[in-house]
């Protein structure tokens, strides 16, 4: 049982870090509560695997502390941290049977024989590995191997957290959802903290209650999938979450109006005031493609745009259009009215987001 706290944690691979760019993990504070199902989401190279290895103890952070239940564990190797880790490529002991694989962590800590068998059988039962127990682990399929490596974490009574490092990378797509559901089931059954690293937003949001989105060595937002979608805290989150990602318009304030290029954007007054009050030159308006409406006819509140492409994805269509020299996307429900190349777009005023220097600014109603 553990609450994992990262205190002023930072990590660099460079011996003599000069600038924030030298850090794989920039200084951060974070708390993973006992029993939570978390995802660590971000693109390749954002530092999420580094962070995971720091938590598991494979890597010692260069700055700050890792606390397990209030105790500093920075120097403790993984074997002394009561954690289990499932790797991207399944790690199994080829020459052993599935049973021996699952019993291995117990035998290593000299658990008496009569207690090993029931424990292994219990875990095998949960993971649906019982029919395979007597087989050599070598010939298993990738998803079975991944279940075995997860099982090695579950057999130990002292495991308080399981860390997953993109565990479904090598799994066939049709088996992915099955294994993901299994993970969820295990999480509900055992009171174990689970941290799941992935770059797939769908994987993250189906597995986790809360997602930490990492970008450039920082956790830019930590929230539920719904929060990430509705109120992204950073332009990266807006862009990374959602399919397609959020549209961003660079805007400036000019004579009581919000200008996007040479175009005046119809905006609620509170946005005009908020933008007028910022000093920054990096001001963006974000709008999810779901909240962009496309009209065939000219309207007062609509902006004239040019249709570039329509992708029909069955239950919805994605319209790519050009506005002020930039391309944007709108996601329209099935059966939307027809329109020609010249279109008129409106943005749902309740769904607009204001981003100053890439961070979301709440606009008071």
């Amino acid at each position, binding site marked *: 049982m553990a609450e994992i706290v990262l205190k002023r944690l930072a990590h660099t691979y460079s011996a003599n870090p000069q600038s924030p760019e030298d850090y794989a993990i920039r200084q951060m504070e974070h708390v993973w509560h006992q029993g939570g199902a978390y995802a660590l989401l971000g693109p390749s190279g954002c530092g999420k695997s580094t962070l995971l290895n720091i938590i*598991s103890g*494979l890597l010692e952070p260069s700055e700050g502390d890792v606390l397990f239940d209030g105790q500093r564990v920075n120097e403790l*190797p*993984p*074997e002394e941290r009561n*954690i*289990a*880790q499932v*790797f*991207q*490529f399944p*790690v199994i*002991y*080829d*020459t*052993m049977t599935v049973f021996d694989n699952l019993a*291995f*962590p117990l035998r*290593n*800590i000299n658990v008496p024989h009569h207690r090993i068998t029931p424990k292994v059988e219990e875990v095998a039962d949960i993971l649906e590995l019982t*029919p*395979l127990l007597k*087989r*050599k682990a*070598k*010939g*298993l399929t990738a998803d*079975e191997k991944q279940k075995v*490596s997860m099982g*090695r*974490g579950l057999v130990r009574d002292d495991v308080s957290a399981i860390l997953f490092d993109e565990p479904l990378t090598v799994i066939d797509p049709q088996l992915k959802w099955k294994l993901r559901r299994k993970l969820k089931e295990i999480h509900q059954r055992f009171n174990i903290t689970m941290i799941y690293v992935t770059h797939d937003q769908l994987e993250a949001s189906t597995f986790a209650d809360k997602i930490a989105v990492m970008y450039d060595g920082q956790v830019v937002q930590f929230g539920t999938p719904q929060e990430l979608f509705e109120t992204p805290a950073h332009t990266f989150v807006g862009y990374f979450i959602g399919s397609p990602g959020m549209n961003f318009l660079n805007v400036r304030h000019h004579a009581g109006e919000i200008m996007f290029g040479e175009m005046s954007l119809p905006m609620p007054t509170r946005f005009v005031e908020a933008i007028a009050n910022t000093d920054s030159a990096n001001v963006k308006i974000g709008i999810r493609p779901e909240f962009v409406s496309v009209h065939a006819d000219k309207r007062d509140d609509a902006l004239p745009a040019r249709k570039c492409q329509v992708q029909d994805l069955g239950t919805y269509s994605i319209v790519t259009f050009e506005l002020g020299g930039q391309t944007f996307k709108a996601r329209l429900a099935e059966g939307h009215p027809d329109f020609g190349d010249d279109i008129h777009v409106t943005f749902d005023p309740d769904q607009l987001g204001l981003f100053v220097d890439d961070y979301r600014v709440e606009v008071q109603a």
Partner: protein
Amino acid sequence: MNNKVYNNRAWLLVLPMLVLVAFSAIIPLMTVVNYSVQDVLGPHASFFTGTEWFRTMLNDPALQTAFGRQILFSLTILAIQIPLGIGIALIMPKQGWQASAVLILITLPLLIPWNVVGSIWQIFTRGDIGLMGWSLREIGIEYNITRNAGDAWFTIILMDVWHWTPLVAMLCYSGLRSIPEAYYQAARIDRASKWAVFRYIQLPKLTNVLVIAVLLRFMHSFMIYAEPFVLTGGGPGSSTTFLSQSLATMAIGQQDLGPSAAFSIIYFLVILLVSWVFYTTIMHMQKDKTPQGGA
């Protein structure tokens, strides 16, 4: 539709290789087979003897002893070189300039021609000017490879271990390097002991390179010629006369073409048989590890 063009002139393309193999292997081998069933008295005087030479060779007590000696030698060096090679590979540095330096140092013995290896050790072990021979004598150890068969054996084995363990070590090193880091990390998390890591991760991943190492070392040690020939000349007495040296004496020294041809065929078949049995057994064992049938 079958788009293949049938043209028997394509055989012409195989011809150069066929000629090459014929001249380098098939014709010499067939000549040996031809000799082995004849008594060659002179260039134009020979007569057919059937399997007589084979029977003579198999019943020759000197050759039987040499055969036993050969097996003992091969088993001894395998028993030393394989574990030692694995051990060296395990403690070799994994990265940085140290890794390169150690690799180069370790490879050096492999680069020395075989008869030079014999000469080096012949001088090295001399009691008057050889570093090892002299040092041993100075600290009061009776050591003489020309008089004492035990010393001669010890030295030949030491020489072979020095010369060829690097090969085993290099093969194992490459095998160890191919193990993904995640295996070691998982083993740490599973709290595996060093021994368990070796037994369940490293050794299984080394199986394939070890098969190659054992085969190479067996074949070569079973045919060893130049090094002991230069070092001890087969002596003292015939205590270090191995099969290849007996064969060379018979074929080149005494020009007994028939018997030596029969002998070399037996020699060849023994190596082939042992290697085949070993390889098939290992491959069979590996096959047993894979499951039988579906889930």
